[in-house]
């Protein structure tokens, strides 16, 4: 499984073209309803989107505090929109 530290989405796209990457946002900030990823670390890569999604779900369930994403590197800009969820109240 390839592992590398990267500083931008552009670098990740160059290094891992035409595939899915599961990555952790190492630092990020909010700007006008968008989440800007300042630096990220690629955790795994996969040609198969189903396997990449499974890998993301597995890692997310190990540590939900980590800001994890699974994205295809054909995507030029991450463009992550922030949404608020006030939640569901159970009886």
């Amino acid at each position, binding site marked *: 499984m390839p592992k590398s530290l990267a500083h931008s989405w552009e670098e990740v796209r160059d290094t891992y073209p035409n595939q*899915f990457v599961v990555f952790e946002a190492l630092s990020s900030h909010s700007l006008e309803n968008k*989440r800007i990823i300042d630096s990220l670390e690629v955790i795994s890569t996969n040609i198969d*989107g*189903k396997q*990449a*999604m*499974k890998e*993301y*779900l597995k890692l*997310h*369930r190990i540590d*939900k*505090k980590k*800001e*994890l*994403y*699974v*994205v*295809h*590197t*054909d*995507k030029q800009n*991450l*463009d*992550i*929109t*922030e*949404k*608020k*969820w*006030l*939640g*569901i109240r*159970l*009886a």
Partner: protein
Amino acid sequence: MARNSLGVVPIGRQYGLPFVNATLLANGLSVALSNVIIDTGSASSIFSADKMLDIGLFCSAEDQLFIISGVVGEEYVFSKTIHSLGVGNLSILDFKIEVGAMDYGFQFDGILGMDFLLLAKATLDFKQMVIKD
């Protein structure tokens, strides 16, 4: 859940919340969703990534990305236009859904939000405990 000749779908209750069964079509495949919460407090509709994987639905380069901040922390979701989403005879074609891990501490397959309820012009009947058009 049973469906009568009028296409009326019963609303079940769990944790004090209204649940229905739904059917989602994408990639030429259909997946039956049980335990979908009807939530007029949710603007959009979201479904479990695990269930979507059953019909080979995962993120692609074209999908819009979101980060949802809630009481249980933050979670990445992507949005996707699916072929159709149906509850009984209420069915919406080319419907945009969000897909995420949905680990909120209890088991459910999705949230049927106001986007679907408005487009389907759904009637929620809490006297008969059914959803219908």
